[in-house]
């Protein structure tokens, strides 16, 4: 279906071979940064992570120390940014979202993650449970850099990386799928890299 461009041969064919790079992506060993605005710098003493109901009622809340005292997991995953790069075998440390939601009764079908700086992103609840998502505070054995989302970011590696909200401060349980920041600006509501769901209508 695609149009062949005269003379184009391509140089990064190794990306095909791993079978781990989704369509339209290329592999990088670098760790590029994508964000819409300045990097927030919230002091850890003022930082907390909240699970809230749709109406905004606080259901659970952890200070930085409390979050760090939760059981943490180290995971090695591939990540895929909608700006086309994929990075394989990235190692993160964080608390599983399952741990954070344990003991919370909900009929919600979606969550909206919110962050310092006003960023939000929407996900189905089932995409952040059952070992699929973490609140990550470590990268490659080091504390997570602010420009990569530190002190903590959501990590949902099976979706495009804008869903892995940087500087995350909480999850709001939602009955409906409410478009977040990029999702209101033309980016796909769900964002599965393997189905190349980059933009509205993909």
């Amino acid at each position, binding site marked *: 279906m*695609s*149009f*062949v*461009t*005269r*003379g*184009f*041969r*391509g*140089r*990064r*064919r190794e990306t*095909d071979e791993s079978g781990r790079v989704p*369509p*339209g*992506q*290329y592999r*990088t060993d*670098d*760790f*590029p*940064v*994508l*964000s*819409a*605005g*300045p*990097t*927030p710098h919230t002091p850890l003493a003022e930082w907390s992570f909240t699970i809230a109901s749709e109406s905004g009622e606080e259901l659970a809340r952890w200070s930085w120390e409390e979050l760090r005292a939760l059981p943490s997991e180290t995971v090695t995953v591939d990540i895929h940014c909608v*700006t*086309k*790069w994929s990075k394989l075998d990235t190692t993160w440390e964080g608390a599983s979202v399952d741990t954070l939601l344990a003991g919370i009764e909900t009929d919600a079908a979606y969550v909206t993650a919110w962050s310092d*700086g*006003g960023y939000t992103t929407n996900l189905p609840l089932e995409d952040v449970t059952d070992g699929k998502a973490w609140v990550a505070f470590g990268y490659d054995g080091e504390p997570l850099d602010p*420009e990569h989302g530190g002190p903590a970011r959501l990590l949902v590696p099976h979706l495009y990386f804008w869903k892995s909200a940087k500087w995350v401060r909480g999850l709001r349980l939602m009955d*409906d*799928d*409410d*478009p977040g*920041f*990029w*999702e*209101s*600006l*033309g980016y796909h*509501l769900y964002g599965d890299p393997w189905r190349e769901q*980059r*933009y*509205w*209508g*993909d």
Partner: protein
Amino acid sequence: MARTAVLGRLGAAAPIAWRLAELVELVPETPRVASLLLSVPGWPGHTAGQHVDVRLTAQDGYQAQRSYSIAAPAESERVVLTVERLEDGEVSPFLVDDLRAGDRFELRGPIGGYFVWDEGSGGPLQLVAGGSGVVPLMAMLRHRAAVGSDVPATLLYSARSPEEVIYREELDRLGGGDGGPQVVYTLTRERPSGWTGYDRRIDGEMLAEVFGRPDADAMAFVCGPTRFVEVAADGLVALGYDPSRVRTERFGPSGRS
């Protein structure tokens, strides 16, 4: 209700179609940078600051996709991309060195609804560019000129040397014109003899001198390599700019310049 309406709109949204672009002319800008003037039948129009996705397909079906900002203003009938050749890159050397007038490739867009400015967005417009990060900001200045906007505009542009300044003549012409933007360069590695302008990487002091105290209506756009964007955006926030009015775009691998 509102949410249902939004979801309905998203659900019904047509995919952003791949279109065939034909290279009309390749305009060298610097030794490493060229502008691609493209004819794209069916192009739906765009806003300054948006980008396109380019998809190249080889004879055997192998494909590569990359994003490129649109350099042309909304008023332009041509889609114009300005591409910097990265050594050993897969797509940029092909676009800059191998493509000939009449060659065609696929692109789709326009994409991105946040890093955008048009006359109605107001200002003052404060632009900070590092290297090829000037491309989407140039689209904003071109739009401003095309509509004769009197929104005050300033561009602080960091380049390694005078030869690496993209759009130099046009920027000097725009800057010298009546009601034109204020254009300030900083040249970080090589300067022409007698250069009296800035000669260092962007820092807080430079941002304060060029942009001064923030106007509540100011809109800042920062584009360039990651480190550059971090420093410039942090610097503007330190000057008192409202973080929600400082918009950033980064072109990718942090290794770039």
